[in-house]
């Protein structure tokens, strides 16, 4: 069995809380990129027949009205037993189409109006609501409960004061659901509500009662007003508990209804979209990641190890609900089948069971010939697939809330379309994994080098873009904001586009042999690189001097073995960053990239997402830093600093591209490359912003062992993964840390 390990660095608790509570200033763009969720569709397992069709009708209505996801809510009272395991059947697209054959056209219509991208997958989640009456029942709601694990979301419905108190302060649930339509059996106390808010537990308000009956309307307003006052509108999600499709309303209508409760319009809209999204992504993270750090996926046996992790890795969808995602066929015509399957086929395994079977040496993420522990490997995408993957990833990313990326991707796609054959060859030759947004196609010159990529190199994914030379002008034209850092072997680094220099980009590739790279060697390599870099980096008008553009050096080393691209995050970071720089989100690899294994650092920095890409092949030659710049390209320096401080294991390397974060300072996900000698652990630094903006967690499989990241300041020492024998090396700090600026994300 081949396992893919996605490592996700857990936040320290306070940091996480901060990040999760982070609310960026609302911007319309940000908001529009969100999908709308309704997390409270009731489900009972009583007479299945009528229930099935009402549920289907409800879901159809939800789809038509423009929602991007629903959750089927099952309520249980009393003691939980094994029978309560999740058995909610998810609806399939054909069944919905049967009910409403012209679904797609009306969905498209509404989605356009709501500014939701058309091809957003419709997600289905499962949720359990436990009525808690006695403390004993409440105790069952802890993390380790296996029944709970079968559901995506867990909610508690306290029935008396003590249960409510426990729910707010201790229980590990996602949602506290209170039925406001009858007089409350307990009092809401402000300190309890506050405690719940700090723990990131969301309160749920349902609106079906509002619409259905006059008397329940009165009760709801009376009861819920207090809650709204005390939470000041945050940490609230709105859902319908609609028994039939008649009580269902569109997202903006619902948000307006809530204004009657005293919820401001902004908060109400957030409650329907952003809060739900954060909730889901947190819940997904808890569910799929062992101790919120590691996700193991089983690679179906028989898959060729050669295959790029491609779409699956790159299209990592942090809020995917697995099989529940429905992609509308008509709308998704552009996507090839393989790419659509990509998002669905990941099955995560129970970590505990995997641990036993893992080699004692730790995870050999990458063996030369054995293939990486890759998640579902997809066939090497064809040309078309690549584009469609790209599109898909772009779409999902966009759907996930990063609009810039979407834009970027579009531009990228367009550019790519113009690209010549070469680029395509490049893809093929490089065994490129899914192209993430930022990937640019190399020039023919690169192709040859690309060919050098060893097929063994599987860990790294992410191809970095690169060919600067011929494309530089292209790039400049096509993508304004992207900064390209080109490194031409022959000509040396080219100057960075001054125009683009807003952002920071760091793309550092270091191709090194997997097995041999250690932190020291990497450091050496980096140092060697440094001199080689031409003045390109220094030309950065921003004055980002060290910016290494280290990239350049790579070329000089002929790394035939290639394989790891280390993005020297540090390097970028050391560059002086604008004090005003905003958080940026690396566009490069937003959700779409997921190299296996991933090591995630969630710490963070909330600045932007940076992803380091591992370059298999790419590096051989050029490194191109591709920075899509959505709005603002902020220096990643603050984020670099942060990265440094991130976990020890994180190897942060290059934050390759940063997607500019929308005005709001959303958290950014920082991806660090994590290099561990002999382990191609992918480093995924994932910073999930609560509002879903930062979906982009980028995970890179860092084949490179170099552990540049280590040089970063270690802010916290998270729980070390046991199988990283070179932990010590990770702590090595080859570079002097320059803590330039504090984390810049603004807490709005």
């Amino acid at each position: 069995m081949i396992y893919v390990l996605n490592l996700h660095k857990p936040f320290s608790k306070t940091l996480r809380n901060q990040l999760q509570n982070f609310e960026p200033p609302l911007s319309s763009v940000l908001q529009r990129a969100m999908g709308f969720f309704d997390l409270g569709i009731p489900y009972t397992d009583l007479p299945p027949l009528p229930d099935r069709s009402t549920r289907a009708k409800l879901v159809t209505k939800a789809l038509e009205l423009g929602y991007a996801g629903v959750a089927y809510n099952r309520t249980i009272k009393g003691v939980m037993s094994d029978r309560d395991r999740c058995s909610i059947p998810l609806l399939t697209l054909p069944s919905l189409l049967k009910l409403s054959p012209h679904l797609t056209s009306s969905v498209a219509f509404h989605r356009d109006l709501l500014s939701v991208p058309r091809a957003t997958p419709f997600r289905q989640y499962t949720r359990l609501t436990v009525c808690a009456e006695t403390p004993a029942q409440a105790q069952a709601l802890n993390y380790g409960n296996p029944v709970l694990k079968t559901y995506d979301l867990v909610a508690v419905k306290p029935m008396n004061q003590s249960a409510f108190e426990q729910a707010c302060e201790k229980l590990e649930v996602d949602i506290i659901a209170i039925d406001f339509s009858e007089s409350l059996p307990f009092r809401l106390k402000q300190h309890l509500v506050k405690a719940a808010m700090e723990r990131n537990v969301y309160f749920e308000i349902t609106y079906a009662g509002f619409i259905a009956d006059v008397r329940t309307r009165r009760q709801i307003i009376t009861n819920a007003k207090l809650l709204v006052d005390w939470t000041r509108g945050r940490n609230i999600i709105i859902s319908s508990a609609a028994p039939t499709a008649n009580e269902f309303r569109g997202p903006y209508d619902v948000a307006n209804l809530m204004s009657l409760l005293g919820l401001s319009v902004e908060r109400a809209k957030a409650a329907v979209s952003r809060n739900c999204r954060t909730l889901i992504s947190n819940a997904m993270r808890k569910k799929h990641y062992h101790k919120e750090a590691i996700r193991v996926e089983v690679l179906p046996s028989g898959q060729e190890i050669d295959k790029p992790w491609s779409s699956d890795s790159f299209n990592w969808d942090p809020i995917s609900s697995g099989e529940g995602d429905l992609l509308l066929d008509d709308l998704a015509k552009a996507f090839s089948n393989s790419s659509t399957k990509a998002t669905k086929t990941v099955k995560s395994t129970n970590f505990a069971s995997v641990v036993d079977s893992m080699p004692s040496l730790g995870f050999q993420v990458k063996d030369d010939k054995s293939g990486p522990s890759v998640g579902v490997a997809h066939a090497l995408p064809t040309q078309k697939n690549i584009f469609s993957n790209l599109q898909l990833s772009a779409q999902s990313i966009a759907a996930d809330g990063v609009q810039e990326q979407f834009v970027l991707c579009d531009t990228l796609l367009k550019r790519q379309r113009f690209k010549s054959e070469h680029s395509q060859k490049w893809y093929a030759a490089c065994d490129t994994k899914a192209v993430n947004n930022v990937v640019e196609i190399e020039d023919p010159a690169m192709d040859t080098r690309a060919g050098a990529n060893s097929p063994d190199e599987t860990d790294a994914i992410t191809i970095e873009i690169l060919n600067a030379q011929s494309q530089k002008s292209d790039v400049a034209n096509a993508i304004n904001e992207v900064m390209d850092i080109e490194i031409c072997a022959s000509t040396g680094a080219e100057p960075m586009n001054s125009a683009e220099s807003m952002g920071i980009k760091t793309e550092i590739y270091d191709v090194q042999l997997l097995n041999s790279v250690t932190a020291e060697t990497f450091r050496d390599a980096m140092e060697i690189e440094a001199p080689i870099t031409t003045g390109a980096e220094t030309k950065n008008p921003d004055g980002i001097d060290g910016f290494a553009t280290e990239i350049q050096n790579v070329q000089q080393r002929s790394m035939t073995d290639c394989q790891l691209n280390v993005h020297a995050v540090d390097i970028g970071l050391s560059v002086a960053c604008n004090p005003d720089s905003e958080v940026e989100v690396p566009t490069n690899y937003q959700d779409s990239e997921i190299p296996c294994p991933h090591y995630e650092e969630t710490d963070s920095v909330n600045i932007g997402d940076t992803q380091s890409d591992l370059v298999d092949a790419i590096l051989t030659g050029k490194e191109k830093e591709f920075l899509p710049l959505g709005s603002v390209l902020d220096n990643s320096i603050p984020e670099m600093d942060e990265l440094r401080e991130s976990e020890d294991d994180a190897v942060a390397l290059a934050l390759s591209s940063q997607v500019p974060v929308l005005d709001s300072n959303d958290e950014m996900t920082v991806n660090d490359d994590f290099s561990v000698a002999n382990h191609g652990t992918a480093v995924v630094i994932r910073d999930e912003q609560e509002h879903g903006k930062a979906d982009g967690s980028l995970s890179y499989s860092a084949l490179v062992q170099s552990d540049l990241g280590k040089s970063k300041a270690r802010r916290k020492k998270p729980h070390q993964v046991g199988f990283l024998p070179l932990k010590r090396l990770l702590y090595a700090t080859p570079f002097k840390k320059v803590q330039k600026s504090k984390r810049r994300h603004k807490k709005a």
Partner: protein
Amino acid sequence: MVGFKNRYMTLEVILDPNKEIAKKDPVIITTYNVTKAIKDSILVNFGECGLASSLGSLQVKYVNKITRLCIIRSSREDHQKVWSAITMVRSIADCPVIFTMLDLSGSIRACKTAALKCDELKFEQHKLVVGSNLSAQDTQEMQSNLELIKRLEH
């Protein structure tokens, strides 16, 4: 200086959301129907005074029974209340309905462009649904309705 501001809402009416597909329309929406339903809803939810204060500017400007689109005007102060009241409308003449807002704008011009676009798109959908039974009368009606939209004024 224009002291008095209005809001123009473009709404879509979904008739009988629970029905099986391809049934005949249970009720035909007209200006009168819609106005009555909205006023009742405001009365129930906001009382006599609420109704009275919003009644000044409340007007259903346009209703298209084929595409089920309507344009409603209300004053700016009350538009949120009126919108909530509309959302809470449960039925029109015994037929359960859902009102969905498609567009909200402050001027009649912007509203007209949005409504035209929505109307046309909805008509396309209607054609899909109806299939080959599209009657010439329907198309004609649509045309005249579109003309009506264009001629709307505050």
